C-alpha cells in the first residue's frame, strides 16, 4: 500500500519532520541573544525561545527609558498581504479606514468576526500601494484566506521568513543615524522607510510598544545577524542593551497598550461564550470607522452601539498606594464586584500605581465614582488584603514628548 516514493528527498515536508526536536524555535537573532543572556530565563513567545530578562529586568526597563533597548520581535506573527485588490481586501477585513493609510505608513488596527467580536489587534504596514504586512499576536491564516475569497490578493505567513527588532529609547534615533541609516530622523511616528543593508533592504518604521521614541526594523531572516551587529556596534558609544519581555511589559503598561489574550480574549480562543469582546469593550472603539466601505463585524458593532448593549469597558486605573494590583478584583462601593485588573505595575516614570482593567458597564463608563480594588499581596506566607481606591484615568499613563518630536533629539 505504501507507494514507492521516487524523489522522496524532493518532498519539502519530509525535510521538516524533525521540528519537534527543537520544540521552542530559536529566532534568527538567537545566537546574539544567547551570548548576552546570563539568566537562562526563557519563555515561549508564539513557540519561540524568548528571554524574560537577560540580566536584570529593572536595569533593562531603564534602558528603554534612558538609552536604547534592543528587543527581538521576530516571534511576532506576520502576514504578507499583496495583490491588486490588497487595499479593498484590507478594507473588508479591518475595522479602521485603510484608504487613509498611505504607502509608507503604519497604523494600529483590529479585526472582528461576524458578530463584531475582536479576533485580534495588530499593526498594519503599508509597504507599497498593493502590499501590506500585518503584525499580530495570534494566528489567523484560515480567517484571512477565507476573507480573501473574491479578491485578487494573496495572503501568506512570513513569520519565520522575516526577522524583526525593536530599538526603543531616547537614543534610538541617534543610534540609527550613527549606524548609517541616513535620513532616519525625518521619520514621523508611524512612518516607515526602506534602507539598504548588506545588499538587501531593511524596513524601518517609527513604531513600538513602549510609548517612547523608538523604531521597529524588519529584515530577511538571512540578514538578521548582520543587522544586529550593525546596531550593536553603533550602540557602543550611545548605550544599547538587549532586553527581555518583563521590562518591555512595564513600558507597554505605562504606554497603556493592551495585549491579546492577556487584557482581552480573542474570539477564536474564547471557549466561554461570554468572554468575547467588541472593539468598544476593549478601548478600541476609536479604530472603528462606520463611514468606510463595509468591513466584517460592522453591522453587529453598530447595532450594539445603537442598542447600548455593550457589556464591558476597558479602562486605565490609578490605584492608591504602591502595591501593584495585578489580577485584582474591582469593586464598586467596596461591595459589588464590577471587574478585573488584567495588568498592573508601579510606574517608575509616573510614580503612580497603575492598572488596566475590564469593567462591567455602566461602571467605568458612566459610573466612575467609588471604585475599589482588592489586592491580595502575598508577603512571607500571608496574604495582606488591601482594599484600595481606584480612579479611572486616561491612557497612556505616561506621555513622552520625545515619542512624537520630529526630528528626535539625540538623547
Amino acid at each position: 500500500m505504501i507507494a514507492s516514493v521516487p524523489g522522496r528527498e524532493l518532498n519539502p515536508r519530509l525535510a521538516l519532520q524533525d521540528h519537534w526536536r527543537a520544540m521552542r524555535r530559536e529566532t534568527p537573532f538567537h545566537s546574539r541573544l544567547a551570548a548576552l543572556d546570563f539568566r537562562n530565563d526563557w519563555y515561549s513567545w508564539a513557540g519561540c525561545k524568548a528571554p524574560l530578562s537577560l540580566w536584570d529586568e529593572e536595569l533593562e526597563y531603564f534602558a528603554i527609558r534612558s538609552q536604547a533597548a534592543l528587543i527581538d520581535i521576530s516571534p511576532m506573527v506576520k502576514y504578507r498581504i499583496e495583490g491588486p485588490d490588497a487595499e479593498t481586501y484590507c478594507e473588508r477585513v479591518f475595522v479602521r479606514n485603510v484608504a487613509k493609510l498611505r504607502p509608507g505608513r503604519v497604523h494600529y488596527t483590529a479585526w472582528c468576526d461576524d458578530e463584531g467580536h475582536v479576533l485580534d489587534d495588530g499593526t498594519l504596514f503599508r509597504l507599497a500601494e498593493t502590499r501590506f504586512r500585518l503584525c499580530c499576536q495570534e494566528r489567523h491564516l484560515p480567517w484571512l484566506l477565507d476573507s480573501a475569497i473574491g479578491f485578487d490578493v494573496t495572503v501568506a505567513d512570513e513569520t519565520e521568513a522575516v526577522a524583526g527588532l525593536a530599538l526603543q529609547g531616547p537614543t534610538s534615533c541617534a543610534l540609527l543615524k550613527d549606524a548609517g541609516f541616513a535620513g532616519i530622523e525625518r521619520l514621523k511616528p508611524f512612518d516607515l522607510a526602506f534602507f539598504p543593508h548588506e545588499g538587501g533592504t531593511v524596513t524601518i518604521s517609527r513604531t513600538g510598544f513602549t510609548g517612547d521614541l523608538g523604531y521597529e526594523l524588519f529584515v530577511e531572516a538571512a540578514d538578521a545577524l548582520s543587522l544586529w551587529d550593525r546596531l550593536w556596534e553603533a550602540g557602543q558609544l550611545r548605550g544599547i542593551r538587549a532586553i527581555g519581555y518583563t521590562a518591555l511589559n512595564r513600558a507597554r503598561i505605562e504606554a497603556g497598550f493592551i495585549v491579546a489574550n492577556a487584557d482581552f480574549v480573542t474570539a477564536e480562543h474564547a471557549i466561554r461564550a461570554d468572554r468575547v469582546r467588541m472593539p468598544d469593550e476593549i478601548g478600541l472603539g476609536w479604530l472603528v470607522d462606520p463611514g468606510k466601505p463595509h468591513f466584517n463585524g460592522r453591522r453587529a458593532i453598530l447595532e450594539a452601539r445603537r442598542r447600548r448593549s455593550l457589556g464591558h469597558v476597558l479602562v486605565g486605573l490609578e490605584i492608591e498606594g504602591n502595591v501593584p494590583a495585578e489580577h485584582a478584583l474591582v469593586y464598586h462601593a467596596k461591595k459589588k464586584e464590577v471587574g478585573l485588573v488584567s495588568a498592573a505595575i508601579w510606574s517608575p516614570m509616573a510614580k503612580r500605581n497603575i492598572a488596566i482593567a475590564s469593567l462591567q458597564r455602566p461602571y467605568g463608563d458612566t459610573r466612575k465614582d467609588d471604585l475599589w480594588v482588592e489586592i491580595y499581596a502575598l508577603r512571607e506566607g500571608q496574604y495582606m488584603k488591601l482594599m484600595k481606591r481606584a480612579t479611572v484615568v486616561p491612557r497612556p499613563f505616561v506621555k513622552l514628548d520625545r515619542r512624537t518630536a520630529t526630528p528626535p533629539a539625540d538623547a
Partner: protein
Amino acid sequence: MKRWDAIVIGAGHNGLVTACYLQRAGLDVLVLEKNDWVGGAAVSRSLTPGFTYSNCSYVCSLFRPEIMRDLELPRHGLQVIAYEGGAVLTQDGDFLGNYRDHEAHRREFARFSARDAEAYDRYSRDVTRQCRFIQPLLMRTAPDPTSLKPRDLGELLYLGRKFAGLGASEMAQTVRFWTMSISDFLDEYFETDVIKAYFALSGIIGTALGPMSPGTAYILLHHYMGEVDGSVGAWGYARGGMGAVTRALAASFQASGGTIRTGAAVDQVLVRNGKAEGVVLEGGEEVWANTVVSNADVKRTFLSLVDERDLPETFLRRVRNFKIRGSSGKVNIALDSLPEFPALPKDSPCLRGDLHFTDSVERMERGYDDWKAGRWSADPFLDVVIPTTLDPTMTSPGKHFMSCFVQYCPPKVEGRDWTDVDRDAFGETVISQIAEYSPGFRDRIVHMEVRTPRELEAEVGLTEGNIFQGELTFDQLLFNRPVPGYAQYRSPIGGLYMCGSSTHPGGGVMGAPGRNAAAEMLRDLKRGTRHMSAAHDVI
C-alpha cells in the same frame, strides 16, 4: 434461603460501579459474573507467559474522576498515565505526528498545510465548547420529556437553560454537531486528507457507520469529553492494562463488604407478578434478591435473560430494533522487541501514542463499504497502541504488548457465522497492514489473540460485539437511550434495572451509567446518595 438486597448481573466496569455505590449505601450486594474473572470489556489477561493484554478496551480517558475518588480506586491500585499523541503513517512514507505541545502540534500540521495548522485553534475551541455543554449531562439522569414529575421538569429546565445559554450560533452548532457526519464537520475546518483522517477516526470508532454517515460528528465528541487529571480530551493507559480499572473496582467493592461470584452465569431473571425476585443461574440454582440490576446490554438483558411475555409489546419491539451492530475487532499481540517504523524519526515520541495507517477519510469510507457488504475491511483502519512503552508492569523490559483495534469487522461474514479460518484471515489482514509500515514485524510476534465480534460476544457478552452496547447515534442518546420511556435505568419489570453502556450516557469505560443507575435505585429504595459526588463543576 438468603435474600440479597441487590444482585448485579455482570462484573463489567459499570456493574461494579453500581455494586460499589449500592454496597456503600448499606445494601447487601451480590455480583454475578459468568466468566472466571471480573472485568467485562475492561480486562487485563495473561494468555501467554510473561505478557499481560488489555484484551478489549485499551485506553482510558472517559472514566469519571468523581467515581475514582468516591470509590477510592487509587487506593485499590488504579493509576492512569497520560501518553503522547501518536501518528498517522501515510502512504507516501511520511507521517502526521500528534504532539501534546501546542506549537509542535501546529508546526507538524503546517508541514501539510499552513492553513490547517492555524485552523486547529478554532476547531479545538468549537469542540471544547460542545464538550463543556455535554459533560455535565453525563452524571445526571436524562429527564423524561413526557413526565410531569417535578424532578423531570427540573432536569428538562436545566437542559433547556443550558441549551439556551449557548447563544444562537452555538445552538446551531450543537444541533449540527449532533446530526452531521464527521467528514462534513471536518471539512468546515481542514483541507488536508491526512489531517481529516486523523480526527475522523474518533468519529467512527466502535460504530457501524462510515465517516460520511450523518451522526458521526457526535461520536467524536464522545471521545473528546474525557480527561486525564483535568487535561480535557487527553487519553491515558491504565497501569497494568484496562483490567486495573475493574480490579480496583472489585477490590473497592469487596473492601466495603460486597460479594462477587465468578463462574456464575445468569440464565434467567426470576419475575413474579411483574417484579424481579432474583435470578436463576445456569445449572438451575436460584438466587433471591429484592432488586436486580443488569450490566448486560439491553438486548441481552431483555431478549435472553427475561421472559419476553413479561414485557410490554412496544418496549419489546424497540429493544429488538435497538441498533447494536458489531463493527470492530481486536488483535492483541505479544512482541519480543519494540517494532520499528522507518517512517518515524529515530526516538520519535509518537511511538508511545496511537498509531494509525489510514491517511484519508475516503479510505475509511471504503472500509465501511466492505462492512456493508458483510466483509471485514480489506484495508481496515487500525488504532494501534503499545502501552508497554510507558507501563513497565505488563511484560518484561524490552518486550512489548501491542493492542490493535480494528474496524470494520462485521458480526457475520457475508451472512454466515464466523469460522476459525475467517478469524485467522482477518488477523492476517491486520498483521499485513502493520508489516507494510514495519519491516520485520512478523518476526517479533511471540503470540497473538484475534478477536472478531464472535469472540467478543461469546466472551464478554456484548451483543454482536458492539463495544458501546449500542450505537451512539442521536436517536439512541439521552432520554432515548436505550429506548424512549426507559432512559432512567428502570425497566418495565419492577425491581429490575439496567446499568450498562446501553443506558445514558453510553459506552466507553466511563462508569457514569453505573453510577447513575445506582443513584436511581437508591432513590427508589429511599436510601441516601450522599456518598456519591455530584459531577465536578465545569467552570
